[in-house]
């Protein structure tokens, strides 16, 4: 890439998918101003499943929204596949979110006036309006994969929470993003639905998608490759978990819990 073009790479690690350097976020709307992120340095490798944990108010969701460009960091830089996101304007950043990022939230936010399939299709159609058929084929395949093809014409009030969250995952993947951001994706679900959703995410990760997930739940966190722990806006510690397998799930969870307790979780 040539120098002088917006978003030119100055990333230190060229093989990283996502990287942030000395990231800070301060809210000036409060008196005194609140510093929520305080000099975070983080690298997410391609294909990694990174879990962000910490107590309430530690800054984990803020970190997620700042590295995904939903919010603007007060200082520091964020690189996605070598491109500096902090230098992009709103339209450019939107294009990045559309084509390279996917989001899953705690609540399944959908447009109530569209059916499930249209909600999933929306970003794909927007990203490639001239490749409509390809988008439709991809979306139908995703719905098939996550077991929601039978509710594709349903309204968003006619399906279960688990189905909605699987639809969220489908929507997040519809544009084949480089990174999937998940903010407490199981926070509003019961345990069986949580397992459903985490299975789906594990499946997505197994397919090679990079995932950054914020969660409170150690059982969910145990699915990740690596867990980082935030306290008062600072990255306190991180722990490599290795690749998740169903038969080691209980051990991974116990080990993780022990580590978290050490950190005061």
């Amino acid at each position, binding site marked *: 890439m040539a120098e002088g073009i917006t978003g030119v790479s100055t990333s230190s690690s060229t093989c990283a998918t996502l990287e942030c350097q000395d990231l800070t976020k301060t809210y000036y709307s409060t008196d005194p101003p609140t510093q929520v992120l305080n000099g975070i340095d983080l690298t997410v490798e391609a294909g990694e499943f990174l879990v962000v944990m910490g107590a309430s108010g530690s800054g984990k969701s803020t970190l997620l929204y700042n590295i995904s460009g939903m919010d603007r960091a007060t200082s520091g830089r964020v690189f996605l596949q070598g491109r500096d996101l902090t230098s992009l304007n709103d339209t450019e950043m939107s294009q990045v979110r559309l084509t390279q990022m996917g989001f899953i939230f705690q609540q399944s936010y959908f447009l109530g006036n569209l059916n499930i399939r249209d909600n999933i299709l929306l970003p794909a159609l927007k990203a490639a309006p001239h490749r409509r058929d390809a988008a439709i084929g991809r979306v139908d395949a995703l719905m098939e994969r996550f077991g929601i093809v039978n509710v594709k014409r349903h*309204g968003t009030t006619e399906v279960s929470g688990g189905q909605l969250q699987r639809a969220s995952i489908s929507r997040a993947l519809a544009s084949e993003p480089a990174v999937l951001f998940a903010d407490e994706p199981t926070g509003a679900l019961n345990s069986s639905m949580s397992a459903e959703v985490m299975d789906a995410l594990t499946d997505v990760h197994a397919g090679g998608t990079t995932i950054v997930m914020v969660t409170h739940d150690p059982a969910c966190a145990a699915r990740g490759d690596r867990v980082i722990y935030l306290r008062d806006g600072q990255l306190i510690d991180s722990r490599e978990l290795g690749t998740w397998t169903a038969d080691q799930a209980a051990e991974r969870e116990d080990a993780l819990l022990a580590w978290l307790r050490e950190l005061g979780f």
Partner: protein
Amino acid sequence: MLKKDALYLRYAYNDLIKNKGVNVALFLILMISAFLMATGAMVMERSLGSVDALFRQALPPHFLQMHKGGYDADALDKFASERPEIESWLIEDMIGFDGVGISWRRPSTGETGDFSASLIDNLFVTENQDFDFLLDGAGTIPQPATGEVYVPVGYQRDFGLQTGDDLRIRTDAGSQELTVRGFVRDSQMASSLSSATRFLVSEKDFRAMASAGGGDPEIIVEYRLSDTALTSQLQTAYESDDALPKNGQAVTYQMIRMINAFSDGLVAVALVFVSGLLMVIALLSLRFVIRGTLEDEVREIGVMKAIGLPHRSITGLYLSKYSVLALLGCIIGGVLGVIASQLLTRSVQVNYAPAPVGPMTFVVPVAALVVVYLIVIAMCRGVLRGVRRVEVVGALVHGNTSTEKQSARRAKRWARRARRTDLASAGGADMNRRLALLDLRAEVGQWVLIPVVFALAAILIILPTNLLTTFHNPRFVTYMGAPQSDLRADLQFSDDLDTVHRQVLSRMEADDRLTAVRDFANLLYETPGEEGWESLRVEVGDYSAGTVEFLNGHKPGTGEIALSVMNANKYGLSAGDEMSIRRRSGDSTESVVVSGIYQDVTSGGYTAKMPGAVTTGAVGYVIYADTTNDAEPAALAREYSDNYPSAAVIPMREYVQQTLGYVTSAFLRAAILAVVFGVGVALLITSLFLKLRLTRERTKMGVLTAIGFSSRELASQVRFKVLLTTVAGALVGAVLAATVGESLVGAVISQAGLGIASLDFIPNPWLVYLAYPLMLIAAGYTGAVALTSRLRAPDKSAWLKGSPG
């Protein structure tokens, strides 16, 4: 103060501070409505007060008859002695001078001028002894000394005259010079609709002017009655008595009052109309805001219910805020109204008399404001009744104001709608527009506020302008009982009337600058009325060419008569009915068929038209003519007026403007006011609506942002929705103004008793049906641009529910 009230007020204060933008907008709309309502009420009270005050002091006649030429004084004496209802009567001698012949000079500065711009008659009189007094500014009856003159207040205003100026009147024996001693108000000729005005001089100067020659001597026979209800009876008796002088206009007390009240009352009516529409807009907006607030704060309401607060207390908490807003709006609107009404009634107070300050001065505007306040509070109470339906679990768990059943029904409706959408098979329409359209369809209940408000605003700004252009249009003469033409020659009230008529007519017919010369004579007929034979003013001539517009029926042929609306109503006749008429008492009665009904505002609206030859002996003649392309009507009018001083020849356009000048200027003010408020309110409501709407759509916009929609695209969706709804509203409003609005205004005007039963607008289509809607749409769009520019906030995650941790 009770503890509970203090709590309510503290809540109201905190909420007012918290939602500043929305509350300021609501307050402004309420204040403007209250302001206009109070101003309308005050203008009405002050105007009527002024007119009444002048009438009380000046004692105008209950019936008067103007006359030119000789008369039989004994016959008048005899008539008065035979009529017990006559309390007092008088004959006022007057000398009329043309405005061109009266000039003024200010000795201190040497400034000069004349009254040629005024087309009305300038009549010089002495002060009456018993009634019909001319009054000075202090309300006293001035008695000018020799060499002094009191000038009408209207001229003081129009020509900027001052006390001490010299007035020079051109007579046959040279100039008569008088010094302006003061200004007088005239109860019977105060209205700008009056065709004459009176100057007050001393007996000696009056005699000198009369003997000098050059003026037109004229008399008014005036009567005060014991009961004003007997006026029409007296008029009939007077007009049927051949011995009495009556070659001029006859005017009744009712007509004087009506004309006086009409010109100034219109401003008040227009203000009340504008205020009424604004009230509707204010109520709609309030309803929208309150419902939105209840939805937003449903969890708080749920908590209050859960801890056992009764509905009444919860409602009271919300009501306190709107009460404070409405109360503040009414108080400030009322105070502003006092200032505005003083400005608006300044000319009325000068022309008539300063209205006395009585209990009604305060009661009327306060009552208007109380009505505004009560309506607002009643509406708020109605909407807040929704609090009662809120179920604790639904509110706390699901955060909605509806009951289980309602929620289920709504979910089904949404699902049904969602099933019908199909982005996959949709054409290549822009995704943003598609989403905007889907949004509009789904949230039609919310967005409908905008088209409704814009339709009302369009009606608000279009109607006064339509009325203005209608009154201003030369074609409006067809409402005034005259055919459309370029020139109008009015001949009446002179001794050699028939000779002058013959001369003017033959000269006009021979004039190659004039075409379509039409000659009509005004004859007095009689027809049976409620109290025996009554006089009927009939215009006779050839109606085969173009004439006035007929409301129903057609122009009169042989054996037929056309009646003005007022006459048709008075005698209960419609087209096809038979009517008996006779030329004068003792003549044989002939039966004519009513051919049609037309509108007329001249002669109090009571006229008739019959075909026939124009012969001599009429009470007056009117000649209409068109000018050829290169002839200037104003120049021709001047030329004919100079050659025939006793004929009033004026361009038709000027005739309309002079007769309706004051009315149109009142409408102009109303129209400007309406446009300013209409456009302002359109901007205000759009901003208010979007402020609330965007707050409520934050989550959806957060999702769209995460999906990859830019702030610019989100703004474009909102602007597109605003554009669609404002265009729809403005168009519907324009159509309604042209259809329902026309009938509505027509109905009001017909109720005014002016002789107009049906009003067809003569609009300026480019202005009202293009420029005005565009102005409204531009105002709405400006609001949308201003509000959506806030979507460029740097932190969009805050739009998603659940604050970042």
